[in-house]
C-alpha cells in the first residue's frame, strides 16, 4: 500500500469504531444489528410519549453545510427521542460563518462540549476529514457523491419490512448513479445483505468504473423491471441537462422513467422506492408515486427510527460492534449476566487485568 502515513492509519482505525461515515465501513453483522435495533425505536415511536432517557445529557450537533430540512429534522427528532440535546448549524440559517474553514468551525463547536456531530456537505470526504479533527462521533448525513449511510439503512429496513430477508432478492437502482451518494450507499448495503443489484442507467450516468461493486448493469429498464422485487428510483436533477449527460428530460423519462405502463408490468409484491424529493413526471409518474406499492412515505417514517438506532449505537453502546456482539446469539445464561450492570463492570475490569 502506498504511503499511508502513521497518523492516517490511526485515524482510520478510530474512524471505524466511533463514526458512521460509509456503509463500506460496516460488516454484515453490524448492518444486521443496526436494523435489529431499529425495531426497538420503531416501537418507541409508537408510544404515547415517544421518548426514552437513553442519551440524556448528550449533545448532538447538526452541521449542515448543504441544506436539507427533511434530513436535518429527521436527525433532530431521532436525537430528541433519545432525550439528547441538539444544536443546529446550517447554511440556510447563516449560523455557519462564511469564510470560516471547516476545521475552525468544528473546533469551535467542539469547545462547547459535544458528543456527536451529524454532517452534510456538498464535497465528498468532509465527514472523514472532520473525524480527524474531533473526538466526537461523526455521522455522515450525505457527502457529495460519496455516501448517505443512514438513507441506505432506512432503505434496507423498509425493503425488509415488506420483503423479509433480502438474501437473493433482486433490486434495480435506476437513474443517475454517477452523482448519487444514495446509490453508492445502497449498492453497498443491498449487496452486503445478499441481494442482487442491477444498475439501470444510460452509460453517461454510471460511474467511470464499476469494478469495486458486484453489480449488474443494464440500459434496458423494460427488460429488468418485471424481474425485480424492488425498483429504486433516483432523482434526475435538472443540472444534468447542461452537462451533456442526457439529451433532455423528455428522453430520460421515455427511457428510464417509471411510467404507469412500466409500473403495471412489475411483479406482484414488488415495491417502488425513492429517496425523495420526487420529481413527479420525470423519474416517476405522479400516479405511480401514489400507488400502495410505492413505499416512499414509509421510508421517511423509518428514517427517524433508523437514525435513533445509529445515534444510540454510536453514543450509547460505546461503539459499533462487529461480530463481537454475541448479543443476538447469546444463550439465556449470558443474558442474565447482561442485565446486571455492576457485575458486568467488575468483569470488564477483570478482563482488562488479564
Amino acid at each position, binding site marked *: 500500500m*502506498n504511503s*499511508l*502515513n502513521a497518523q492516517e492509519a490511526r485515524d482510520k482505525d478510530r474512524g471505524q469504531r466511533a463514526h458512521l461515515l460509509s456503509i463500506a465501513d460496516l460488516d454484515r453483522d453490524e448492518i444486521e444489528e443496526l436494523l435489529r435495533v431499529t425495531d426497538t425505536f420503531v416501537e418507541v415511536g409508537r408510544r404515547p410519549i415517544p421518548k426514552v432517557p437513553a442519551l440524556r445529557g448528550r449533545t448532538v450537533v447538526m452541521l449542515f453545510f448543504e441544506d436539507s430540512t427533511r434530513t436535518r429534522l429527521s436527525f433532530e427528532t431521532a436525537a430528541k427521542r433519545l432525550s439528547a440535546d441538539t444544536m443546529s448549524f446550517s447554511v440556510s440559517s447563516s449560523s455557519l460563518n462564511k469564510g470560516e474553514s*471547516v476545521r475552525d468551525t468544528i473546533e469551535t463547536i467542539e469547545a462547547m462540549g459535544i458528543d456527536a456531530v451529524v454532517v452534510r456537505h456538498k*464535497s465528498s*470526504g468532509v465527514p472523514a476529514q472532520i473525524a480527524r479533527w474531533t473526538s466526537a462521533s461523526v455521522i455522515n448525513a450525505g457527502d*457529495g*457523491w*460519496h455516501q448517505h449511510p443512514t438513507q441506505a439503512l432506512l432503505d434496507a429496513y423498509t425493503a425488509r419490512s415488506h420483503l423479509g430477508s433480502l438474501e437473493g432478492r433482486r433490486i434495480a437502482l435506476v437513474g443517475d448513479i454517477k452523482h448519487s451518494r444514495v446509490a453508492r450507499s445502497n449498492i453497498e448495503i443491498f449487496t452486503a445483505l445478499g441481494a442482487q443489484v442491477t444498475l439501470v442507467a444510460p452509460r453517461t450516468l454510471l460511474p467511470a*468504473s464499476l469494478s469495486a461493486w458486484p453489480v449488474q448493469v443494464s440500459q434496458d429498464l423494460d427488460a429488468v423491471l418485471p424481474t425485480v422485487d424492488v425498483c429504486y428510483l433516483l432523482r434526475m436533477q435538472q443540472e444534468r441537462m447542461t452537462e451533456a449527460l442526457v439529451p433532455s428530460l423528455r428522453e430520460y423519462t421515455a427511457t428510464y422513467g417509471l411510467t404507469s405502463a412500466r409500473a403495471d408490468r412489475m411483479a406482484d409484491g414488488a415495491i417502488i422506492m425513492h429517496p425523495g424529493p420526487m420529481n413527479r413526471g420525470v423519474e416517476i409518474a405522479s400516479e405511480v408515486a401514489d400507488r400502495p406499492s410505492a413505499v416512499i412515505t414509509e421510508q421517511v417514517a423509518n428514517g427517524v427510527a433508523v437514525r435513533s438506532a445509529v445515534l444510540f449505537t454510536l453514543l450509547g453502546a460505546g461503539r459499533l460492534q462487529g461480530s463481537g456482539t454475541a448479543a443476538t446469539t447469546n444463550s439465556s445464561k449470558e443474558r442474565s449476566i447482561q442485565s446486571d450492570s455492576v457485575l458486568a463492570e467488575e468483569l470488564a475490569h477483570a478482563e482488562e487485568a488479564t
Partner: protein
Amino acid sequence: MIRHPDTVIKGGRLIDASGEQSGDILISDGHIVAVGQDLQGEILIDAGGCIVSPGLVDLHAHLRQPGKEETETIASGARAAVLGGYTAVLAMPNTTPTIDCAAVVREVLELGRESVCDVHTTGAITVGRAGEQLAPMAEMAALGVKVFTDDGTGVQDDRLMRRAMEYASGLGLTLAQHCEVNSLSEGTCMHEGEWSARLGLPGQPSESEELMVMRDIALARLTGAKIHFQHMSTAGSAALIAAAKAKGMSVTAEAAPHHFTLTDACCEHYDATFKVHPPLRSQSDLEAIKNALAAGSLDAIATDHAPHAAEDKELPFDQAPPGMLGLEYALALAFSELVDGGAMTEAEVLAAMSWRPAAIAGMDNHGQRLVVGVPANLCVIDPSQRWVIDATGGASLSRNVPYVGKEVRGKVRHTMVFGELVVRDGEVQR
C-alpha cells in the same frame, strides 16, 4: 564575488556521464582544479562510502515568489533544493504576477542570485498564462530564459500552440507543456477510475493528458519545434513519447517522484495532501512510468515541488489546491523506488536527475563531467543511509508532504554550488 576556501572531497565514488571512478576532487575558486588521489585542501570533506555526483538539476519547481511568499520564497525553496542535492532549479511561471515579461524575470533572477541554489526561471508561453496571446519570449530570452511553459495549465488552443512552436523554434527556444485538456479535466480532482468511483469524486481520464501529448507530438512534427513534456503520469503518455523518439523526433519528457511512488488509492481518506495535477494514477500507470524512466524514454525526474499552506490542504478534497512538496525527497525516493526495485542503477538515476535535465534546460554549468576546469556544482550522497520522511524539519516554508512515515534510503550529505559548500553534513549553511 566571495572567494570560498579550497575544498577537497575525499574518497568518494565519482559518478558522472562518463562512468564511475573513485578518488578525490579539489575545488578552488568555484571550479574543479584537480581530480585524483591524495589531494589536499583547506576544507576536508570525507566522502568515504558516498557517491560524488554533479549536482542535481530540477526542471520543475514552484517557488511561489512573487505572490505567495507565505508558502515558499525563492530563498526557502532554494534551501530545500540544496538539501535535496540540487544545485540548480528551473522555476515555474505561475506566480502572481506571472513570469511573462522581462521585468518579472529580472526580479526572480535577482532573488535567485542571493539564494543558495542556482535559480533559473521559465517564462510563460502566453500572457498571464491565459492561453490567448503569445508572451514576449524574445525579451525574456535576452535575459537567459531558455524554456517556456504555461505550467499550471496547458495551452488549449491548437492554433496558438502551433504558432508558439514556430516562434520558439525560430529563436532556438524550448517549449515545455503541462498536458491537460481542460474540457476533459474541468471540475475534476483525481484520476478517473475505480477509486474516483468509490470515493464519489469527479475524476479525469488518462486521455485528458494523452490527447495533448498526441497533439503536441503532431504539432512538433509539423513545426520542427523542440518540445519537453512535463510531469508525465500515464502509461499511454509514456508509450506515445517512446514512439515519437523511435521516429527520431526531438522530444524530451520528465516524470515526478510522486508518479513513481504513489497511486490514486492514496486518496482513500480524502487527505488533500495527495491531490495533485496531473493526479496520482493507477498502479499500472505507475509501473509504466518506472519502466519508461528505466528505458530512458522519459529522460528526467523533475520534482514539481508545489508548496501549499496547511489550511488550504485542509479544504474539502475537491476544493483544495493541487500539489505536493518534492525537492528534499526526490533523490531518496528515486533510490528507494527505482534502484531498490531493480529498475535502474544509481548512475542511471543520476543521469535522469542531473546531466540530462541540465542538457534539456540548456544549463551548461551543471551536470558536467567531474573533470578539471568545470564549475564546481556537486553533491555528495550517502546511498546507504536509511531515514524516515516526516513533515517537520524541512527547509520549505510549507508542509504538504505525502510521504510522511515512509522509510527511504539515500541522503544528501553535502551540496556545493559554484564552489560554495551550501550544505554541510545535512545542514544548510546560510
